[in-house]
């Protein structure tokens, strides 16, 4: 597999949200607006890239039987770093993402990539894989957040498109996340097959 394929598979072909259906908890939880989706996606991307990098670096030093706890510690370390940095420099975003930042630790994508890809491939490929998957995840979350924000609050990235009197509130509430996600999965699968 060449590097470009490793990178681009995260967007459509193996998109974590639309195709693999991994990491549903933050996907449904934080995407009430496009900016929240993007913020969450980029935070996860950072964790993915760094944990893939470190896991592929130390993979030969970690005995098989303790690899999962080791990976979890590595991931948790990067998540805590993200949390502290966000709290210090982007407090408003940190406030709106809140609980979901620490939950990146248990996001299946991060551990999944560490286990399925980084522990078997070279450092370079693992980096690219983490970046591709992370950006694919960000793309999915931003798209989902944008659709929900347009339908549910008449805005996109906080820019008003139409009056709040005509919005369908349902879409910023939890059921709206399921409905929009369902339709997006349909659309992306159509594109993938085409």
């Amino acid at each position, binding site marked *: 597999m060449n590097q470009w394929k490793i990178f681009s598979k995260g967007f459509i072909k193996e998109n974590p949200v639309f195709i693999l259906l991994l990491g549903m908890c933050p996907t449904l939880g934080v995407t009430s607006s496009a900016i929240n989706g993007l913020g969450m996606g980029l935070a996860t991307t950072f964790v993915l890239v760094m944990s893939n990098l470190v896991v592929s670096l130390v993979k*030969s030093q970690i005995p*098989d039987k303790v690899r999962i706890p080791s990976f979890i510690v590595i991931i948790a370390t990067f998540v805590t770093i993200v949390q502290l940095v966000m709290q210090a420099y982007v407090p408003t975003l940190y406030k709106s993402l809140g609980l979901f930042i620490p939950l990146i630790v248990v996001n299946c994508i991060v551990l999944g990539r560490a286990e399925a890809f980084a522990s078997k491939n070279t450092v370079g490929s693992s980096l690219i894989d983490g970046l591709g998957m992370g950006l694919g995840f960000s793309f999915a979350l931003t798209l989902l957040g944008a659709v929900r924000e347009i339908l549910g609050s008449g805005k996109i990235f906080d820019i008003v498109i139409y009056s709040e009197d005509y919005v369908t509130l349902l879409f910023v509430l939890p059921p709206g996340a399921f409905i929009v996600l369902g339709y997006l999965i349909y659309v992306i699968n159509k594109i993938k097959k085409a």
Partner: protein
Amino acid sequence: MAKRESTFKNMVVALFMVTLIAAASLGLVYDMTKEAIETAKTEAKNKAIRNVLPEYDEVMGEYRIATTPGDDSLEFYPAYKNGNLVGVAIKTYTKKGFSGYISIMTGIDAEGNFSGYEVLEHAETPGLGSKMDIWFSDAEKPNQMVIGKNPETARFDVSKDGGEIDAITASTITSRAFLDALKKAYESYRETEIKPDESARPASK
């Protein structure tokens, strides 16, 4: 490179090294961000105080009052301009929100009326209860305004309960909680020492 065998010694060493490095790097990052986190918190607080009070020069003599023993206390920030008290910002809270805890910074001016508020923290329904951040300060709709009023001149209950404030459409519980937090702030404000006309400090008057 060959994979390490899963012997007891190897496992202990590997786990120890991983956790050691993790702990060291976390300590380092914590140290680096500690100051910035503090600054960000204080800045957010100061911004909220500025938003809810009339113009002032400085905030002095902050104090706290516990309304119910064992519960969170209210924080008071008296603000002065040219040595005269212009108002007190009060960080108040309620636990009666639709999704529990709501924290609000509110300001009471020298006349004893609410001069503004800012919702600091809440988990209310987006698009319904979350509207409280603008609903109660809409100058075009006096029936839902709390600014310029106080619980002694107007009854701080939603109209459904016989009060004088219109609740947020479809969010009566949030509205009740919001007014509860404001009433709590006002009551403790009344009980405190500092009165607008006899401000103890600073002495220059």
